[in-house]
């Protein structure tokens, strides 16, 4: 049995970026977003479900995502989130910022 991969706490402020980018592929409900983040990071990023739903509603409140009820793949009634135009724009900015940030941090760290 392989050792479990280390689970990292989330950097401040990056949760919104994660949620927005999970929705960049199209509509998705909360459970799918949670699993998407978990899977994509290979289980490295630990996002608490509570924080995730709070983020979704916060983004909805700011008009970056919109939500409506729909039917899930298992025929369950689920609330589907979707990027709004403003959300798509914000995602672009956030991604650019993140890349700049990550590159800068890596550059500094490589010197060690």
């Amino acid at each position: 049995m392989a050792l479990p991969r280390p689970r990292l706490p989330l950097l401040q402020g990056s949760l919104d970026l994660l949620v927005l980018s999970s929705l960049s592929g199209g509509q998705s409900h909360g459970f799918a977003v949670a699993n998407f983040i978990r899977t994509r990071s290979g289980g490295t990023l630990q996002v608490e479900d509570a924080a995730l739903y709070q983020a979704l509603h916060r983004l909805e409140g700011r008009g970056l995502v919109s939500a409506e009820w729909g039917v899930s793949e298992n025929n369950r009634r689920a609330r589907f989130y979707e990027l709004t135009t403003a959300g798509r724009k914000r995602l672009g900015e956030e991604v650019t910022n993140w890349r700049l940030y990550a590159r800068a941090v890596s550059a500094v760290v490589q010197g060690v």
Partner: protein
Amino acid sequence: MTPTRSSRDRQRPFWYLRRRRAQLQADVDEELRVHLEMRTDELVRQGMSREAAAGEARRQFGDLDYTRRYCLEQGTRKETRMSRRLDFSELHQDLRYSVRAFARKPGFALVAILTLALGIGANTAIFSLINGVLMRPVATPNPERLVVIREDLPGLNLLDTPLSPPEILDLSARTDLFTNVTGYQPFAWNLSGSDGGVRVEGAVTVGDFFEVFAVRPYLGTLYTSEHSRNGQHQVVVFSYGAWQTYAGGDPRIIGQTVQLDGVPRVVVGVLPPSFQYPRNAQVYKPANLPPQALRMRGTLSMTAVARLRDRVTLTQLASQLGTEATRWNEQYGGGKALFARPFAEYHAGRLRRVLFVLMGAVVMVLMIACANVGNLQLVRTVSRARELAVRSALGAGKGRILRQLLVESGVLALVGGGLGLSLGALLLRALVRWDASQVIGVGAVRLDGRVLGFTALVSILAALAFGTLPALRAMRTDLQRTLRDEGRGTMGSIGRARLLRGSVVVQIALALVLLTGAGLLIRSLDRLLDSDIGFVSADLVAAQVALPGVKYDSVSKQSAFYATVLERLRTMPGVTAASIAWALPFSTQTGDSNPLEIVGRAPRPGDPAMHAEYRVVDGDYFRTMGIPLLRGRTFEPSDDMTSAAGTVIVIDDLLARQFFPGEDPIGRRIRHGRGEGTVIGVVGSISQRQVDEPRQKAVSYYHFRQTRSVLMAIVVRSARDLGAVAQMIRASVHESDPELPVYDIATMEKRVDSSLGDRRLAVAALAGFAGLSVLLAVLGLYAVLSHTTERRKPEMGVRMAVGASPGQVLRLVMRDGLLLSSLGILFGLAAAVILTRLMEGMLFGVGARDPLTLVVSTALIAGVTVLGTTLPAWRAARVNPLTAMRSE
């Protein structure tokens, strides 16, 4: 996955927000519950027991409770923000839609707006009068805290009299009740300057006159109550108008000396232009109150005005005034009773009742206007049924359509209100110009914030009144069915027809009430104009002259002056008669009422006190005025200071009957206002101040050659016009004394007429409103009949096709219209009989149920409604059966 966006989000009814919070909570709970279920399912698939999986899902989730609240809060915030934006944009949409709808049918909008503007304009004008006359009679803060204090002397049969200066000072000591107290007496002086003399009106005051009215000086300072008592009464304050007129607006007036009746006075201050009280006052002067004047509690000459302390109510004041009067009666005797009246009410006087009746009238006019526009709206919604049905099919909820209809009404009301405000301002200006002589004193009335607020409120109420019913009515119709039936027939419901017809009946009834009210007032005025005032007012001109006491300091000098002037006048061309009088009837001169004694007759205990007014005239006065001599003789020039017979007195018929019943008064001696004298003649009694007041006060006449006569009116009977007679009077006076101002020149007819000013206002306004309401009601009847006959055209076609003659169709429609008119008349008569009773105090010589008035108004209404019925009926009778049926 197929998200089904509910249509709820697109069409929010306006009560949406309230229900929304519960909905949000349910949504959040549902979302989180689904998440936990999905997670549990996943864990079960991985091999956990369902129970353990559920627990693990909860654990992995984290703080569920906090998340719930957090999400709900986020959701609420977003909702509020969005619905605000949405509501606003929808309102904007409704507005644009309304304007477009009106633009498509400008005729409807025009008629509706004009009708409303007339109704709202009438309300605005009358409310402005009420606001100006009743609520703000004088430019002062909190005018409602001002009271006028008067007294009754039942023992002397003197009621509602002014107070004496010492009494006013006693009241001003009651600082527990009043912050300030003042008394004033209207007065007039000859103001002499470089360009001869002018007569100026003003007030002599005691107490804190300017503090009571909280007026601040425009220039200089204002005198205080102290100036009456420390010998500094030789100061005056000018009104702004007097400052402009007599000092050319020169600020150097302060400190200058002017001559009032030949006595020098120093101008200490000028009042702001906003302060105009008492009416026409130009000069204010403190009364001179030496110690002996403070003992004279019988000179009841001053109107007392006081400003109430905060928290002192009128009821408390009444009881405290009772205590005060008791104290006075114990100390000084007199048996007086004090009472207070709100300042505004006291000054509005007879006008108050007039204004309330007019307010009632304009409310009725507005009701008719609203009923009319409501009908128009109703008819319009019918023809718009299809449009509304289409909108509804396209997804507009009932609430949305209802709101759209109300917004349309609101737009009409606001535009109508704006136009009404202008109309009201015009009407007000006409009224003020009409009252140029200030008979009723509406000169200071203007549109202010309160009037604007009133107009806005009336407009909104009107919109609700005429908009709600048609809108709700439209809602009750099945819009879907209308669409299928292509809007034909279905909306012609019985209920709607009943609404239309009911509102026509109400309009006719209200119009009849107004017409009856106006009729009663017209009849009263007619009776008043015909009523006997005891003298012949035609061809009489009167002017006033005041002799300065300094120059004319004896009876002989005074009488010599007047005798010369009269001699001159009598020889002038066109003069039939000329005479002089003090206390001319229907003038600003006021006759005093004084106790009267009959020499040699001791008053029996329990007899009412004898009181009468006295006049000072010359012997030709009765002939000049056209007052009949009933017994004895009038004055001769020989009845002067040197006459052996001493003072002689002429009494009027009323005095003879009151105090010498069954006796011959000639030769009897009486003691009255100007001393003891022998009665030499009896003349007819005359009306003194108002045509409609019963003649109660008896009058005695003294001869000008035997008593003081500084302030006199010159009365001339001549067929020549006012200007010519005025010129003759001026010339005769100035030939004797070029410095004397001749003022208040007017025909007697004008004076008598002016006393009826409030009645003329009431008649003119009420007749105008009645005419307007009749016009609106008939238009309403016409519109409804036209509409219904239009809708019944196919039916008429069928009737005619199966043999009905055009005459029969004509009768059918006529019967319909006349039924409505008869119902309206019936209700109107019932309402008129009840409502006109409120006007009883304004009527003269006619009863509130005057049959002639009722018959004439009914006939008038019946006549015009027949006219309003004939045209639609005639049109219906001309229907071509073929075309009518084909349109089906």
